[in-house]
């Protein structure tokens, strides 16, 4: 697995990790101040075409960060699956964005820049910051009146790559080209409306633009790692975990997980549809092996207490599903050890075995005969934990590798 982002909580402890965020915040505040974002007239000038500092700073920051994120991801240094991507709530985003634009031109700041203005003693910044305190308070008190709208048009983790169906590298190149075009346009506006002499602009900005374009092209050329490449990169780790049986949990442990209210348990049954219809565990979802990658977007939005258990009749198909999910850095994925055949052997009584005479199954086949496709209506699909007191070796641990849930201003 790529070494970054770092598992900060594991390395520094719960509160220790916050020091890193404090340092990042200090860098953030310092750069905002250096750019002149503590000065409301500089910010408002953006909307009157005389000075395009806001656009230049914001878009250079976005394209620099974007190029480096996707380049390091292409090189296998950064696991993009663990990077927080703001979830899309389309209409609340559009309406909220328009409202923010109004607040920006009325007040002359945005929340981050007003904090910097306030701490550098700009009185208008202090009033704006006080306004933001009142605004978030007002929102918390009134959101209940339009909660359905607030949670509407939710698309989850959607990137521009998903929208346009093109590889990340292509989007990176296009965004860089768009930004360079916007910088050119912004400079023309400054020349016309701000009477600025462009000859006095530094020459190094051409070199910077060239370097950025080169970075973007390199990103597109290398390409983002595919699931196969991720699996190949992680092969030693995957093989070790499988060989040491660290991830194959016993049926008794799965039963305890099912009845653990503190966990968000997701069970994927990766067998054929006919096997699933004959018999499956209560609440197990049917996802056939080739469709496992389609669950990734959803799994990335699940809360941090999520445990995924994949199962097949034995361990063959489920191990393949586990490898895909693990290579894509889904945290806390486990395999039902021995598969559903072992589950039935553990929780079904002797009567059941007699009625559903064991059959010699193929490689990953069902070892019991089911006359009717009753799915999860067999009692063995939902054994009562009170009836069984089976000791097991607990293997499930909640990894904190994934970044904290909620990101950006969403915190």
């Amino acid at each position: 697995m790529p070494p970054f982002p770092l598992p900060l909580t594991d390395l520094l402890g719960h509160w220790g990790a916050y020091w890193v965020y404090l340092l990042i915040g200090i860098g953030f505040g310092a750069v905002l101040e250096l750019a002149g974002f503590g000065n409301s007239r500089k910010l408002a000038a953006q909307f009157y075409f005389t000075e395009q500092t806001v656009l230049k700073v914001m878009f250079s920051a976005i394209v620099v960060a974007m190029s480096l994120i996707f380049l390091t991801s292409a090189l296998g240094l950064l696991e993009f699956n663990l990077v927080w991507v703001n979830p899309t709530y389309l209409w609340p985003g559009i309406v909220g964005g328009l409202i923010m634009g109004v607040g920006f031109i009325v007040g002359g700041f945005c929340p981050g820049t007003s904090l910097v203005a306030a701490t550098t003693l700009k009185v208008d910044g202090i009033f704006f910051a006080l306004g933001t305190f009142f605004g978030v308070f007002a929102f918390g008190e009134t959101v209940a009146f339009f909660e359905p709208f607030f949670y509407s048009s939710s698309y989850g983790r959607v990137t521009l790559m998903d929208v346009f169906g093109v590889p990340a590298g292509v989007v990176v190149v296009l965004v860089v080209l768009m930004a360079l075009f916007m910088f050119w346009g912004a400079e023309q506006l400054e020349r016309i409306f701000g009477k600025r002499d462009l000859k006095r602009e530094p020459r190094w900005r051409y070199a910077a633009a060239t370097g950025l374009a080169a970075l973007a092209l390199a990103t597109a050329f290398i390409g983002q790692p595919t699931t196969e490449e991720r699996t190949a990169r992680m092969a030693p780790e995957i093989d070790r975990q499988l060989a040491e049986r660290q991830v194959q949990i016993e049926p008794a442990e799965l039963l305890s997980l099912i009845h653990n209210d503190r966990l968000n348990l997701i069970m994927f049954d990766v067998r054929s549809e006919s096997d699933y219809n004959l018999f499956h565990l209560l609440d197990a979802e049917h996802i056939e092996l080739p469709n496992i990658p389609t669950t990734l977007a959803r799994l990335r939005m699940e809360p941090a207490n999520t445990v995924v258990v994949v199962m097949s009749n034995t361990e063959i198909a489920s191990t393949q599903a586990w490898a895909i999910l693990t290579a894509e850095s889904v945290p806390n994925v486990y395999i039902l050890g021995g598969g559903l055949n072992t589950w039935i052997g553990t929780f079904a009584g002797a009567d059941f075995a007699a009625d559903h005479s064991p059959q010699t199954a193929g490689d990953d086949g069902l070892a019991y005969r089911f006359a009717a496709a009753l799915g999860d209506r067999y009692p063995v699909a939902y054994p009562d934990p009170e009836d069984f007191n089976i000791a097991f070796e607990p293997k499930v641990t909640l990894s904190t590798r994934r970044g904290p849930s909620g990101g950006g201003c969403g915190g």
Partner: protein
Amino acid sequence: MTAQLAVSSGKSRRLRLMRSKPKPYMHPYLAGILLGLVLFAAFFFTGNGLGASGGVNRIVVFFEDLLAPQHVDRTAYLLEMAGGSENALDSWIVFITIGTMIGGFLSGWINGRLRLETNRGPNVSVRVRWMMAFLGGTIMAYGARLARGCTSGQALTGGATLSAGSWVVMFAIFGGGYALAYSLRKFWN
């Protein structure tokens, strides 16, 4: 001799604090590249981006929870952050916000830009500017919570990770600003 030295060093410090000519701001592209590096470092080391309104939000909810804990426990939106024994300040975004204030202050101090002043258009009074700033802050923060992030948490952070929704929010912010800019031109120019 020592006393004299102390006095003169005290004087020079005061001079630096109120330097009559503050250093000019950094070139926008250079500042942008630096900001991009900070943003990238955030993602690279922590997996999270930047933000501002989220931290402000949690600080406000923290005080709400001190004053009216039952009210917080009854409001679904606040419950998530400060319900029961939950501490609203126990979040990475709060530390980003505190850091932002420290960083802004340090940079302003070092560059001689710590000065008590009100930046405003030439045609408005200080008092009107203050009122508009408060009003603008209120509107902005309300919109930021509705959009689940402000210019930092959506436009910058989501822009860099190519989040579709964040790009929509970014264009909506600029759209809202430009739509109203003409009506408010007397206020800023």
